[in-house]
């Protein structure tokens, strides 16, 4: 870790300065996390009267449980679709906004504000648009001969939450893609143009490769977003249904823990999610270190 050449001395003062941050971290992060690990090794009986130590049995059961495996599958489909949809739309808009000279500020403003909309509100807005009896999209689809009812059809419910989650995330990806595009030296693009490359060829051979650090970073962020922040969308619109068609992992932790009161299993699911976030964080930091070198 880099250090200042000039520093202050003392022991009590830095300890006091760090105390609030460390106290909050210990009480609300480290202790609960350790509790989750501890509880994941226990099992309570149905009345909460006795607790037995079961080792890794909760984890073994999870991976034999078809409802958990289907939730893993639902989460993968949902987060991959959300990341791809919101990133490609954002990239399209960013390339366009990077190209225009007139009105670019106005366009930027019009594209970034959904960042401020909470995921649950995005869910509620699209829930109205897709409402089977009065929603405008359901109406248009009916005109095209498609009967829309996400309350009964699992695939349609999945489409609903993917669209809502992507709509909210486009603005975030847009800001980063635009910043990435603007940091590409103009001289590179001009050189390619002089060599006779048209706009499409320039995009695929020069711009896109130079954007790969941004794209990788955004892929990780979008994955974390789809895994965790979208809880509100699912909870307010589909409730994980129909059946378990939209029960993403975070929703299942909540449902099994708070509604089903299956504490051991819910804790084991939390621990698996923690490992997932830790892995993603490490990947991202290793990647950033590498980027610094070139």
């Amino acid at each position, binding site marked *: 870790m880099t250090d200042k050449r000039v520093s202050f001395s003392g022991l009590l003062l830095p300890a006091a300065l760090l105390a609030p941050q460390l106290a909050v971290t210990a009480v609300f992060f480290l202790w609960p996390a350790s509790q989750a690990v501890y509880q994941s090794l226990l099992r309570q009986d149905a009345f909460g009267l006795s607790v037995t130590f079961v080792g890794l049995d909760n984890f073994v059961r999870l991976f034999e449980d078809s409802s958990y495996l289907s939730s893993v599958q639902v989460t993968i489909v949902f987060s991959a679709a959300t990341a791809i949809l919101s990133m490609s739309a954002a990239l399209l808009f960013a390339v366009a906004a990077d190209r225009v000279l007139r009105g670019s500020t106005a366009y930027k403003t019009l594209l970034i504000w959904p960042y401020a909309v909470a995921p649950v509100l995005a869910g509620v807005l699209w829930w109205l648009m897709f409402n089977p009896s009065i929603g405008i999209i359901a109406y248009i689809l009916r005109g095209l001969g498609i009967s829309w009812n996400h309350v009964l059809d699992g695939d349609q419910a999945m489409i609903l939450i993917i669209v809502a989650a992507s709509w909210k995330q486009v603005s975030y990806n847009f800001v980063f893609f635009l910043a990435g595009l603007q940091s590409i030296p103009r001289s590179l693009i001009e050189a390619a143009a002089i060599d006779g490359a048209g706009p499409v060829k320039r995009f695929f051979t020069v711009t896109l490769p130079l954007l790969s650090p941004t794209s990788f970073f955004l892929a990780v962020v979008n994955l974390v977003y789809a895994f965790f922040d979208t809880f509100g969308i699912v909870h307010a619109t589909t409730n994980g249904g129909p059946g378990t068609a939209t029960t993403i992992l975070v929703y299942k*932790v909540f449902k099994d823990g708070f509604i089903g009161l299956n504490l051991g299993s819910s804790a084991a699911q*939390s621990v698996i999610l923690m490992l997932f976030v830790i892995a993603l964080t490490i990947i991202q930091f290793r990647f950033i270190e590498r980027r610094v070198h070139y």
Partner: protein
Amino acid sequence: MVERRPYLTVLTHLTLILGAGLIALPVWIAFAASTHEASDFLSGLMPLLPGDKLVENYWKVLAHGESSAGAPPIGLMLFNSTVMALSIAVGKIAISLLSAFAIVYFRFPLKMAAFWIIFLTLMLPVEVRILPTYEVVAGLGLLNTYAGLSIPLIASATATFLFRQVFLTIPDELTEAARIDGAGPMKFFRDILIPLSRTNIAALFVILFIYGWNQYLWPLLVTTDASHYTAVMGIQRMVAVPDSEPLWHLIMATAILAMLPPVVVILLMQRLFVQGLIEQEK
């Protein structure tokens, strides 16, 4: 732009106009819905143009709420959201400034350990430790309080890292000059570091205010009493009315009101917002 290509320019503008329209569409529909009365939603296609019940509907949700769903007036929920968002933003910035100052400007044993403990919080979002965190907060008697809504969310690795980066770019000569002039560490912190990081603080504040305002799962868990509902979570109570058609006009009026403050913040402080967003992820 490298060369003139009129067709491409037209296509670019069309893409952007279409994109902006697509982004705005759901909010337009919600706004239109919020200005009609319940009977307009019974059958067929919902109204797509604003009606004449704007003042009536908004006044109703602001002052009375949808009592049948057990939701309090939105006015109260907006107030709760404001308190929560401000406490989270101010709290995060304050404790992160202090810890970044300690980490950058002091040499003391266990510094690396402190650094890594703070770093760990990055890996433990509230969603993965729902139940045990709830138990801690319940054990401390903080359910249904503003402290319970905000304090568990104010530890922040990203804010600490950001201020660490900022402090590292501040020249050592300033510190030396301050020391020669007889300034102690806290005076240096107050009179030099804070003023020099002003823009970064403002940019981060915008991001954190939105973060705090848009919290959903956490308020859902720690508020069981309607008097502490926040606007963003309160809407779920209106949506989840069993066995009856949703009251679309009131739900959408609530949704518009709940998204208005953070959207206004972004529109007014667009430059700070973009700076804060990009800085935070570095």
